[in-house]
């Protein structure tokens, strides 16, 4: 297994770029897919955002300075692409981000690629009601089991703030699930 430094060099070198990029896609596509999916909820939208993420990675790799881990950098791109996608969608429908979140969750009941039961749907509704950053933190911590240090590098927030954010998110979700 090559070191990350060597792998990055292979990604930048024209002769080895294509093969290295193929390896990169194979290694990260599933993790990035689920990260994006929990933001945009819909499979088709996730597919679009995931492809655009890898295209941005491919185009930007020469400018990658290696100051963060490749994984963190790609996650940041994926997160920004997903959030931009949502903003664009809200603008397209002339609705607020909150209204879009509610609409997306309501659409899950008719989504063939959502097989959640009543409690899982309720959980998604609760998550949709969280502020954007809390939603991200909760998904990354609870579903993706990411370390706070890694989340910190992705969404540019201190570990302490992340822990507090996660705690608040859990409390809000608990309240929603038990009372609604």
């Amino acid at each position: 297994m090559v070191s990350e430094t060597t792998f990055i060099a292979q990604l930048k070198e024209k002769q080895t770029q294509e093969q290295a990029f193929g390896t990169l896609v194979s290694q990260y596509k599933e993790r990035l897919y689920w990260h994006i999916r929990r933001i945009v909820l819909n499979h088709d939208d996730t597919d679009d955002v995931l492809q655009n993420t890898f295209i941005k990675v491919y185009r930007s790799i020469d400018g990658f300075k290696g100051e963060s881990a490749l994984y963190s950098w790609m996650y940041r791109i994926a997160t920004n692409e997903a959030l931009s996608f949502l903003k664009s969608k809200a603008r397209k429908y002339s609705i607020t981000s909150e209204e879009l979140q509610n609409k997306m969750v309501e659409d899950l009941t008719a989504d063939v690629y959502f097989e959640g039961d009543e409690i899982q749907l309720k959980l998604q509704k609760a998550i949709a009601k969280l502020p954007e950053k809390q939603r991200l933190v909760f998904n990354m911590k609870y579903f993706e089991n990411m370390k706070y240090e890694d989340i910190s590098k992705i969404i540019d927030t201190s570990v302490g703030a992340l822990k507090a954010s996660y705690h608040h998110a859990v409390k809000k979700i608990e309240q929603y699930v038990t009372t609604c």
Partner: protein
Amino acid sequence: MKAKDLHKKPGFKVPEGYFDSFEATLFEKTAQENNLPKDDGYRIPKDYFETFDDSLLRKLKDKKGGKLIALATYKKVYYTLAAAAAVLLLFIAVKNSLPASGESLYDISSADVEVYIDNGYVTLNSYDIAEVFDDTAIDITSMTEDGIDDENLIDYLHENLDNYNDLMIEN
């Protein structure tokens, strides 16, 4: 030893990293105690990940062709004004270089002006053009009636920004 100093008694230890992971462990247990499901319910089409790489490769090849998204017309107006300024400066330069024979600029045919430029008698640079204008700031948005549409601008950046790193804030 006083009671308040009891905690300082040597010999008491905690596992390494205990306090660092305490909050995380606590919050994790809090979530589990609320019986929140770990499965979010999302599913994917059959063989999605197996076919993803080919789909991405096709899109990459399509993207290499590139696509220009037209912005608002402010750029066209700006270039038109810059071209007009260059022509104005050219007339001034030509007029000043002519002998005072009573001839006006309008007596010179456009073909003669073109030959004059082609032969390198006009040496205009950006500073020469800038001198034609005064120092008042130009409001780009005032050059068009509608200004730049936000949606077009965001779409343009989304489609054409290659170096994503320029927009990202490092941690």
